[in-house]
């Protein structure tokens, strides 16, 4: 078996979630690497939508963007709309998948990237903010969260809902006015989590190589449900790892 680190595992497993002939809203870092990897493998006609107002770029290996708003993210793009219009493609229902990270995530897949503790206007910790994350979570047809699996990140209730997952479960997302979408998967460094179709509470769906169900539970700050069937994630192949590493030879995001 090939050796790989947590970032590589995340990118490879996340890439496998993407289908051909679809569109994906991807941020920089592991999500963009995963989308670029999927495009080289099972999804050659995958169209990336980047929040800087960039449609259909082809990321140049070794020239990974550090921002969604720079020329490297726009390399060989097919369209450069205004930023507002890029998001409006999602509001119109054109974007199949939104790939996102998150500082704090709860059992309904809500994400906090705004404030930790204290009052909103005078918080204990001020985080960078939503950027386009709220819009991606609100407007894409499906959301896949990609994140390190740490107990401090996986909390019962986020301090602040920056990006809506299933809100309080039980139809609350639809009642808030969000017509479609919602979080389908949470790909972590330990496993792949999903949501119960009725209660919308998070559940274990797959366990990554080297992890166990117990380890996933130990690193989660709330009770996880079990999916009817829990699968074992196939390890990253040598081929997947070679393609991924070629995209980021400087190890800018792969660590």
């Amino acid at each position, binding site marked *: 078996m090939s050796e790989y680190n947590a970032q590589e595992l995340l990118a490879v497993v996340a890439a496998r979630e993407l289908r051909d002939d679809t569109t994906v809203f991807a941020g920089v870092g592991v999500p963009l690497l995963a989308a670029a990897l999927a495009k080289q493998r099972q999804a050659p006609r995958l169209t990336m939508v980047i929040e800087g107002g960039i449609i259909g770029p082809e990321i140049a290996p070794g020239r990974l963007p550090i921002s969604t708003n720079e020329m490297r993210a726009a390399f060989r793009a097919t369209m450069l709309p205004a930023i*507002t219009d890029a998001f409006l493609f999602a509001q119109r229902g054109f974007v199949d998948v939104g790939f996102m990270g998150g500082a704090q995530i709860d059992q309904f897949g809500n994400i906090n990237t705004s404030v930790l503790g204290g009052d909103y206007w005078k918080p204990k910790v001020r985080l960078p903010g939503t950027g386009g994350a*709220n819009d991606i979570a609100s407007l894409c047809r499906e959301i896949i969260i990609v994140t390190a699996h740490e107990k401090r990140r996986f909390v019962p209730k986020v301090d602040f809902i920056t990006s809506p997952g299933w809100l309080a479960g039980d139809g609350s997302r639809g009642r808030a006015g969000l017509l479609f979408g919602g979080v389908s998967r949470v790909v972590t460094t330990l496993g792949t989590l999903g949501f119960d179709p009725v209660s919308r509470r998070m559940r274990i769906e797959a366990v990554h190589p080297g992890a166990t169900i117990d380890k996933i539970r130990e690193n989660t700050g709330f009770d996880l449900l079990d999916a009817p069937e829990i699968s074992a994630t196939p390890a990253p192949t040598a081929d997947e790892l070679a393609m991924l590493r070629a995209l980021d030879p400087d190890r800018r995001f792969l660590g």
Partner: protein
Amino acid sequence: MSDGAHVAIGGILFSRTPMALIREVLRARRRGLTLIRNLSCYEAELFMVAGGIERIVTAWMGIGLPWGVSKIMRHHVESGNVAFEEWSHLALGLRFRAAAMGLPFLPSLTMLGSDLMAVGGMKTLEDPYTGATLAAVPALFPDVALLHVHRADRFGNCQIDGYPHMDADIARAATTVLVTTEEIVPEEETRKHPDRTVIPGFAVDALVHVPFGSYPHECYGLYEADVEHFDEYAKGIDARGADAVSDYLERYVYAPATFTDYLDLFGGERLARQGKKARELT
């Protein structure tokens, strides 16, 4: 520009930032400003340390992933010194768009159900046709817009190459629009490619010819962002906190009397190198 003005900054993060104009606003030592920019880069840190702002209206603030969370922003916001009024990227874009359209608000599906709704006081409304719940995104009319474009003629007709960001909406939304341009072209050039004009001259109040006017931020096709400069800046903050920003202000903002003096601090060779990188990518 007066103290207390609400100032919208064009470009986004470290792309097509109107750096020459920002430098002049800092040099004029305005106070009590509200800075409005969807993705705020370290220009907001410069204003925080200079004591020039009381509020940022933004979706995100930082330089980018490799530089982590802004320590300067954390200090100023967590102490209550500067208010961080957070809107989603699209919602803030629609606030400019609504104003650009001369409307009081635009309906949208974004931000609904999130705690961001309460921060800026966004209201919902009932779709009069279906009864569905919609966000009523309020228009934002900035007092002043600062923009940097690729080319303009002497009447202020502006053309932008590459990604247009939100500048066209911001120019329509703001009361006073100040523009710097990489190039001033004859009116005939505008008339040859009118489809490329994104801001009409009648929306522009003042235009200044400033080549490299976004540097060290990027300008599509002309120069790539000087990431090494960001590294140096961030290293200074890691070592010495806000003092490093004060020194930066002195060296790059207050001391150089002209933008040419400022560019000399980087040197022609460096500017040429960044130009070459941009041409390779576009």
